[in-house]
C-alpha cells in the first residue's frame, strides 16, 4: 500500500504518522494515536460522533482526509479533559451510553468559544449536526446552557 509519513498536532502533542492519502482523519486519530474519543457512527457525516476541533472549529473527522489536517491544530475529547463543558455533561446527566458524548462536547465547546452569544436558533442549528439516541436531548441542552450562561 502506498503512503507516506505525515506530521500532526493533536491535543498539544506532535505525531509523526505513516498514512495513506485516502485515510480519513478519524481513521488515523483512532488507529494511530491512541486517542479514541472521536467515534465512528456512520462514516458519512450523518451522526457527528466523530467530531473533533480543527483550528477552533468543529469538523466531522470521518469527512476530512488526514492529509488535509496535516499541520493543523487538532483537539479531540481527550484534549478537553477537565473543561467546564465536560464537567457540565457529568453534572447534568447529559449522557447515558456516552457514545455520542465526545462529539457533542467538541461541538458544544466550539459553540461556546465561537458564539458565546448564540441564540436559541443558532444552538439548534449547531447541535443538529449530531445524533444522540439515548437521551431526549434535554440534559445536553441544560449542560450547554449552564456553561453558556457563565460566559455571558
Amino acid at each position, binding site marked *: 500500500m502506498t503512503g507516506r509519513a505525515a506530521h500532526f498536532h493533536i491535543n498539544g502533542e506532535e505525531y509523526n504518522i505513516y498514512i495513506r492519502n485516502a485515510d480519513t482523519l478519524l481513521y488515523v486519530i483512532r488507529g494511530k494515536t491512541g486517542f479514541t474519543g472521536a467515534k465512528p457512527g456512520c462514516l458519512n457525516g450523518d451522526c457527528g460522533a466523530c467530531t473533533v476541533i480543527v483550528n477552533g472549529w468543529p469538523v466531522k473527522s470521518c469527512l476530512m482526509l488526514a492529509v488535509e489536517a496535516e499541520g493543523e491544530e487538532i483537539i479531540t475529547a481527550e484534549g478537553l479533559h477537565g473543561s467546564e463543558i465536560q464537567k457540565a455533561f457529568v453534572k447534568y446527566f447529559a449522557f*447515558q*451510553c456516552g457514545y455520542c458524548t465526545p462529539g457533542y462536547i467538541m461541538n458544544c465547546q466550539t459553540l461556546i468559544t465561537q458564539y458565546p452569544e448564540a441564540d436559541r436558533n443558532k444552538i439548534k442549528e449547531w447541535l*443538529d449536526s449530531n445524533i444522540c*439516541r439515548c437521551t431526549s436531548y434535554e440534559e445536553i441542552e441544560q449542560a450547554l446552557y449552564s456553561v453558556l450562561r457563565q460566559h455571558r
Partner: protein
Amino acid sequence: MLSKFAHAEIDSISTDRAMKIPGVRGVLTGEGLPLTGEEMKDRPPVAWGKVRYHGEVTAVVIADDPVTAAKAANLVEINYKPLPVVQTPSEAVKENAPLVHENTGIYEKDEGVNPIPGTNIASHTKIRKGSIQRGREESEVTIEESFFIPPSDHAAMETRSAAAEVKPDGKVIITTSSQAPFMVKKLMNSYFGIELGKVVVHTPLVGGGYGGKASVQQEILAYLASMKAGGRPVKIVYPREADLITAPCHMGMEATIKLWATRDGKLKAAEIQYLVEAGAYSDKAIHLTRAAAIDCTGPYFIENVWCDSYCVYTNHPYPAPYRGFSHSEVHFCFERAMDILAGKLNMDPLELRFRNAIRPGQTTPTQYKVNRSTVGDLPECIRRLKKLIRWEEGAVVRINERQLKVKGISCLWKNSTIPPDSTSGAIITFNEDGTANLISGVVEIGTGTKTVLAQIVAETLKMDINNIFVRMEIDTQTTPEHWKTVASRGTLMGGRAAMAAAEDAARQLKAIASCVLRARIEDLDIADSRVFIREEPDKGLHFKDIAYGYTFPNGNSIGGQIIGRGNYILRNLTHIDKETGKGKPGPEWAVGAQGVEIQFDCRDYTYKLIRAISVLDAGKVLNWKAARGQVTGAMSMGLAFAGREAFIFDKEGRIMNPQLRTYRPLHFSEKTEYIVDFVETPHVDAPFGARGLGEQGLISLPAALGNAISAAIELQVTSLPLTPETIWRMKEAER
C-alpha cells in the same frame, strides 16, 4: 459481503480471485457451518444455498486491514437466481405464499416452540382465558380493527463489532459490543460445542443497545473468521449500513383485534391475532411472539381473552428485542382499539381505561391473579395523567382555521417474560483501606444500572458511595453471570444479588470484629465504614482494620480479605401452558399512563409535538435524575419510532434507507417538552421496591400519538409510522 437480494438461490460462490490478493487470510462462506438460532436453529451464520433477506451475510473476507478486505470482497463472485419475495406477515400466511424456509418442521428447537410445517409460521403461542362466546353474549357493543407496523431499527450510535481469537489450547476469547455476553458464551457452546470454560467473553462499555445488542450475530462471524485464519485475532466492525440492515432489527407486526363491551364500557371479551414479523430467521422473534401473547390486552382486566400470536417468516431482516420487547407494538394496536371502542361507546377514552384498568385481585390473560406488589397502581397513574395533560380542556381544540391542538392518551403495562431460571450474581471484594469493589454481570449500556447497584451496596453497608468502586467491564470468566442486560431487570436481579453480596460481606466483617471486640455478632452494627458495638458506638473498628483480616498487636492474625458474594434467581415463575397460556410469566407488571399533545396542521397534515407526558409506577425511584433520563430518553425514542422510523422496502424487498440521513432518528431541534411523574407502589421483591423503568417510557407513546392524530383527522389511524405523507394518503383515500 452482503446479499443484494431479499430472496434468491445462491447458484455459485467463487472466492479464488479474492484469495489471490496479498494480505487476504481467508474467505469464509456458509459451506459446512452448523445452523444457529436461539430457540430454533434455522439460520446459517453465513448464507448457504439461498439468501433470505437483503443485507444477509454471504461471505466474510479476512484480511490484514479493512482496505484490503474491501478490495478482495469486490472479487468474490456470487451468482444468484432470484426468487419471489414475501414482504408482510399477512402475505406470508396466505396459502401458496412463497416459503422462506422449506424445512420449518424439522429444525432443531426448544420446548415451547410450535412451528407449522409447510408454512411460513415459525411458532404459535395461544392464550385461552374464559369463553369468548360468553363474553359476546354479555356485550352490547363490539369493534374490530386491523393494524400494521413495518420493521424498523434500534440505530444505536455505536455500531456492532466483535473481535475473536482462538488460542492454541482451544480457548476462545471474544470481545463484543453486547448486552448478552453470557448468552454469547452459552451459544458458542451450543452452536460449536466449545466447552463453556473455554469461552471467555469480554464486554466493555456498550454504546447503546435498546435490545438490539441482545442478539448474537457478529460474535459468531468473528469466531468463524478467526478459525478460518488459523485462530489469529480477527475483528469485525459493522459499517452503519450493515448495522441497520444486516444486524437484527426492530420487528414489524400486523394485528387484528376484536373487542366486546357492555354499553357502560365494561370490557367483556377480546379476540386477538398478532402476526409478529420474524423476517428471515426466527432467532428472538419466537420469544417476542410469546411476549406479545402474554401481555396481549394491555393493562386491562378482561374475563374472556383469546389470543393467537404467530411468529411469521418474511424476506426482511430478522428482529432483535427492541425496548419494550414487543410491547410497544402490542400497545399501539390494542390502545388504538381502545380508543376506537371509546368512540363507538361515545365514552371518554380515559374513563374507559379507568373503568377497565387492572386492579389487585384480578387476573391477567395468563390467568395470574395480581396484587399490589405484582401490578402496581394503574388507576392512580391515570388520575395523575388526567391532571397533567389537562384533559378537561378536551382532546381537540381549534386554534385557528388551519391549526388544531390535539391530545392523545394511552396506558401500558409490561412484564418481563425472561426464562424462569435466569440468574444474576454479584461479588464485593474489599481493598486494604476499607473501600470495596463491586463486580456484577450487568452490562453498562447507558442505563446507569451499575450506579444504582453501587447505591444499593452503599445503602446496605451504610458506606459512602464514593468508597465503592464499580467494575464496568464484563469478563465471563471472572464476572458472576447476569443472564442478559435486558427487560428492565438489572435493578431487580442485579440489585438483589448485590444486596445479598453486601449482606454477606457485612456478616464477615462482623464475624472478625466480634472476635476483636469480644462481643456477640448480634450486638454489632455497621455504619460509616465501621463495625461497632450497638450500645456503645464509639467502641468499634474501621473497615480498613478488618477488610484484610485483623492483626493483633503480637502479630497473630485472623480472617482474610473480605469477599462478599450474592446471587438471585426469580421466584416461582412458570413456563406458560401450551394450550391456554396459563402461568406466571414474569416477576411483576409495571404500569403507567402516557399522553401527547400536538399541534396539527389540517392543510398539509404536518404536526408539531407540544409535549409528551409519562406517569409510571416506578415502585420506588432510586436515582431521580437517572430515572427521569431513562424515561425521557425512551419517550424520545418512542416518538421517533411512531412518527418517522421505518425501513422502506422496494418491490424486491430491498431496503432503500440504510443510512442515518434516510433512516433519521430525532435530532436536537426536534425535541419536545417532557413531563415525567412517578407513582410509587413498591414491588415487594425488588430492592427498596423499585420496578422496571428502562422501557416503560417508550411503550405507549406510539399509541398515544396514534390516538391524537386519529382525533385530529377524524379517521382511525391503523399503521405506523405517522408521517404527514401517510396521513395525507389516508385523507386522500377517503375522498
